[in-house]
């Protein structure tokens, strides 16, 4: 326990870094993922293919490489210094957005065909079909897999440790050298415990929401 209580300031800052990465990345991922997901089911062929290229490209790129591009290459291109946490957050958002988009798309696919057909039969437009009939039903079946996407995002925030962002993933290297040389094994075990607790928390939230939103179909 001494590892935590002696360096409480650092752990608090690290936890804050992880939460900023998680919520910032999650927000970007949700917005971008919604747009890309909508593009992938839209009636516009070009938008569909742009969405498909984006999703297939980024999903087949390691997150470490995406972050590498954002954290190392973007500052060279912009010729500016940027707050170190901003670019990894954007990278997390861009990467997770592809999973959000695919989750939304498969959620839309779980809505029975008859629903959309009935909506079209009474003369609703594409926008109305989506907002009034399909999306409200899809959102229920989307929530459990969407929470899994966010659990993965939480674990992926640790990758930012490789790009000099203080978070729970990099707290080890901050506690490795004097004046704060702590037992590395103990530090990492504590990090593990924190992550297991956080993940279990999200999993519990997932179960609660799943039960609340379940529909008999």
């Amino acid at each position, binding site marked *: 326990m001494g590892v935590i209580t002696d360096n409480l300031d650092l752990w608090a800052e690290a936890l804050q870094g992880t939460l900023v990465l998680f919520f910032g990345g999650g927000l970007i991922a949700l917005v971008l993922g919604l747009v890309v997901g909508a593009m992938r089911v839209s*009636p516009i062929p070009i*938008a569909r293919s742009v969405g498909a290229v984006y999703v297939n490209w980024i999903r087949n790129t*390691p997150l*470490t490489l995406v972050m590498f591009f954002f954290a190392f290459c973007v500052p060279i291109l912009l010729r500016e210094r940027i707050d170190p946490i901003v670019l990894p957050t954007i990278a997390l958002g861009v990467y997770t957005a592809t999973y959000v988009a695919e989750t939304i798309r498969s959620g839309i696919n779980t809505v029975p*065909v008859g629903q959309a057909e009935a909506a079209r039969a009474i003369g609703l437009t594409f926008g109305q079909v989506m907002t009034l009939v399909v999306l409200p039903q899809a959102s229920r079946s989307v929530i459990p897999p969407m929470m899994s996407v966010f659990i993965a995002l939480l674990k992926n925030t640790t990758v930012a440790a*490789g790009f000099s962002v203080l978070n729970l993933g990099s707290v080890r290297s901050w506690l490795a050298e004097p004046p704060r040389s702590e037992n590395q094994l103990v530090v990492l075990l504590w990090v593990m415990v924190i*992550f297991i607790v956080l993940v279990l928390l999200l999993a519990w939230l997932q179960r609660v929401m799943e039960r609340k939103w379940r529909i008999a179909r």
Partner: protein
Amino acid sequence: MSSSVLYDVPGPRAIARNRILGIVTVALVLAIGAWVIWRFAETGQFSADKWEIFTYGTVWMRILDGAIATLSAFVVAAVGALVLGFILAIGRLSDRAWIRIPVGWITEVLRAIPVLIFMMLLYYGLPVVGIKMEPYWAVVIALVAYNGSVLAEVIRAGVESLPRGQSEAGYAIGLRKSGVLRLILLPQAIRAMMPVIVAQLVVTLKDTALGFIITYKELLYVIKLLGSNAEFHSPLIQTALVGGTIYVAMCLALSYVAYRVEQRTKRRQRALAGTASTHHPVGETTDTELIALQKGAGKYDSHGL
């Protein structure tokens, strides 16, 4: 694409509107592309001396070494993850509570730990208690532990999604639990879950890039090293582009395998469903078979959507 049920076949007005939106999309993509190219030109990324590094054979040999290091970690981790996945899945399907419950806990915990933290624990944490290992083994063991536990859940879900009649029939002809699992349940579960299993292997390949952070000398590490070489005017963006292309190509190749496997299983399922309905008219089947058939049919229907 008229297969979508979300919208009608567009009429003249919708066609015109879709065209405008299409043009806007293209314009937006082109604008982003043009901006990137402009920034490239502005910061001199197109100049010859930035790309000079790729004219040397030894540089390509080092990139090749990095790619081989990535692939060797991936192959060992993939095989290990499959083995561990089977062991954990069988453990979790056990009838004995003293095996089932601890194995369940191990699987859950391994899944909850970020892979990178596990790698760090092996590489930076274990030397404290006197266990030292190469970064290669830290990468491989962490990947095996994480992906093995995920695959265990996949295989278990595959077994549990099978109709009950399958194992009942197995017990009825006198097989023991091990026989039922080995001869009847696992082969079917693996076939049904093949696309998911290959997709998880793609994740394994992607996650080898985490080795970069614990100084395993894989492809990304080589990219960074070559990219910060001042002798060649630190061509970081150039090496990242080349290395990134290699990564994406490797993952796309594996994803393509997953796609092909999925297509093949879909076709086979359709063929099976087809023969089942023609060769077993309702009158000739036993009740058990009928139930199994209906259960199977329902499952495939929801898959087909």
